[in-house]
């Protein structure tokens, strides 16, 4: 029994390590490209170890464009978006998962249609709308929508999670005279930590990397974000790959860090005590 276990575990580790290597490849490619001369980057078969190592790429890339300002701009946007998304999407998901109201599922179905129209055709009308309100050239179009539900994707996700929480908990609280908001904040939210973290994580990463929104709604380089800055290394006929990769490596690091940290809060299987009754 013991031996079978050890063999099983070793196979498991082997598979995981093999797959990890594959998944690490693009990250490693990005890192090693950031440290080479541009002429070496696309040589085939690939040069896996940069020689000579050009640390200067980082200094140059980050100074050609005002990445410091881009960082502040991006940070500002992300803070608004993540907080707005977590708060409003969980409130809305509670309504669709926990409150029985007439027409609820029908309305939810309608909301889902928001995901079904490709952005290419909603881009122009949406843009014209924001422009008519006078918000072209500001961060409003990039931040305010997050406070209006944070996207049907997140509401749908949280709804699914809330539906897995036993109703007995709600009913017990109702008997004690709790309001919906109390149930939401005292019962549902604490039990949904993994899902809320996922929503926060996704919304952070998506906003951090989003370049289309900033591209369309900003009219001044001083307001550009990190992802837009990275794109600026791309020319019509060629790109300055080494700078692009150096900047990308720096920009990707916060997302990796947040992801690593966020995982600590993935608690292992909720223990529901005091449920029997």
């Amino acid at each position, binding site marked *: 029994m013991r031996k079978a276990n050890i063999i099983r575990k070793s196979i498991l580790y082997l598979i995981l390590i093999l797959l990890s290597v594959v998944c690490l490849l693009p990250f490693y490619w990005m890192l090693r490209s950031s440290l080479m001369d541009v002429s070496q980057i696309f040589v085939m078969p690939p040069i896996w170890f940069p020689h000579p190592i050009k640390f200067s790429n980082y200094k140059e890339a980050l100074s050609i464009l005002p990445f410091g300002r881009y960082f502040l701009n991006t940070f500002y946007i992300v803070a608004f978006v993540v907080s707005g998304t977590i708060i409003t999407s969980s409130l809305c998901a509670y309504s669709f998962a926990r409150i029985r109201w007439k027409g609820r599922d029908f309305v939810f179905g309608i909301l889902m249609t928001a995901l079904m129209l490709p952005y290419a055709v909603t881009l122009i009308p949406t843009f014209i709308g924001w422009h008519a309100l006078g918000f072209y050239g500001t961060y409003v179009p990039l931040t305010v929508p997050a406070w209006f539900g944070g996207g049907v994707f997140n509401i749908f996700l949280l709804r699914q999670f809330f539906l897995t929480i036993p109703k007995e908990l709600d009913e017990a609280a109702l008997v004690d005279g709790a309001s919906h908001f109390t149930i939401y904040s005292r019962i549902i939210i604490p039990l949904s930590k993994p899902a809320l973290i996922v929503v926060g994580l996704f919304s952070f990463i998506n906003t951090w990397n989003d370049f289309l929104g900033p591209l369309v709604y900003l009219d001044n380089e001083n307001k550009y974000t990190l992802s837009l800055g990275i794109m*600026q290394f791309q*020319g019509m006929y060629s790109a300055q790959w080494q700078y692009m990769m150096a900047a990308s490596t720096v920009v990707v690091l916060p997302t990796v860090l947040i992801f690593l940290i966020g995982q600590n809060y993935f608690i292992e299987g909720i223990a529901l005590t005091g449920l029997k009754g």
Partner: protein
Amino acid sequence: MLTKKLTACIVAGAMLVSSIGLVGCSKTNSGSGKGSANGVVNLTYTTWGSTNERKAQGDAIKEFEAKNPNIKVNFQHIPTDYETKLSTMIAAKTPPDVALLNKQTALTWSEQNKIYNLKPLIDKDTEIKEDDYLHDSFVRGGPDKIVGITPCQEVFAIFYNKDMFKAANVDPLPTKAQDALTWDQFVEVAKKLTLDQNGKNASEAGFDPTKIKQYGVFFETWAWQTFLVLNDAKLLTDDYSKLNLSDPAVAETLQKFADLINVYHVCPSPAQAKTLPAPAVALQSKKVAMDYDGQWIQLDLGVAKTNFDVGVLPKIKRCTTTLYGEVEAMFQGTKHSEEAFKLLKWMTNPEGVLDLDSSGLWMPSRKAYYTDPELINKWVIKPGHSDGFKDAVMNQALNDSEPDVGYYLKNDNEIMNIMNSALDQLWMGKKTAAQVLKEIEPKAQAAYKGVYVNK
């Protein structure tokens, strides 16, 4: 309990309002059409390009502002999805005042009256004369419509790595049109420069086409319409009534180029090309000996310190080249046509964008820079230009170049989409050029909508 709910709502509401307020405060007064405040005119200028293009154009703009203290330019570098971004600005009726544009885009938009017709401004102007410019620098959307002026002419030639030629004992390419190689001679040169892993070249017995280490020549398949002039063939019939796809000369030209890939194995297939780096890098890293390309790659070649030179295109029937280029255009929505025109003139004046010209990326559009030795020396400098440049590229552009179809073909994008996807089969060696053209002709002809001007 109720208070808790209320409090939550109030807090959320407050954050919402404050976020709008905060952000609203940071709204600056930039953007086109914001007009003049105390006599200062605000213009918006947009362009694409990598950071060195951004810098060079930015410097040109700063110089313009210095010379015109009453004009302030919001220089917006749009790094990607250029047409998408401009479309949103146009749809919201806040286009830039002046912008660098693809000539096809400028022509299409001028059909919808979004582009300012420069003709009246040019007629009035005392500085600008069309004769001062290289032919086809003034892009026309009709007999009385000038859509834009080219700031950067571009032509095609064969760029090659001198070291590779020496190693293979091959003579450098001719730089004068009258000395141009015939097609068969060109193929032989390419063969000698294509080596397999064992060091055999493509003209030797025992050459292994599955193990090629180095290719003799590379060309971009999307540039196929530029090949036709070498065979004196045209994409459109002489009466401009339709596409000239059933002309055997067209099929013959395309077949010759495709044979480089599939018969002689001197050129990488699209699959193999994907694994190659950008042409300039391929030349430098000795993956490719010759590159049929536009002169814009000189910027990268120079920066990478490649030992390169350039030769005239080989002739099938004729040694000439194709003229390519983008335009600076003004948008109809501009509120300051005079100032915007000033800016446009400056950006198309080689004096302002000399850095871009001397880097090898652009070529000036004014004739004087091709004929006056003093001016020539200002921009034909190393490392962005090689010894053969003056004859093979500069003089060809001036004396013997045909404008690309993009200058006059309507619905160019759609036709090219149809043609390019069908031609994939040709480059992959699945069908002959004649077969492909015959099959795709109905669809392509259906998309043909005529020309803007006759050429």
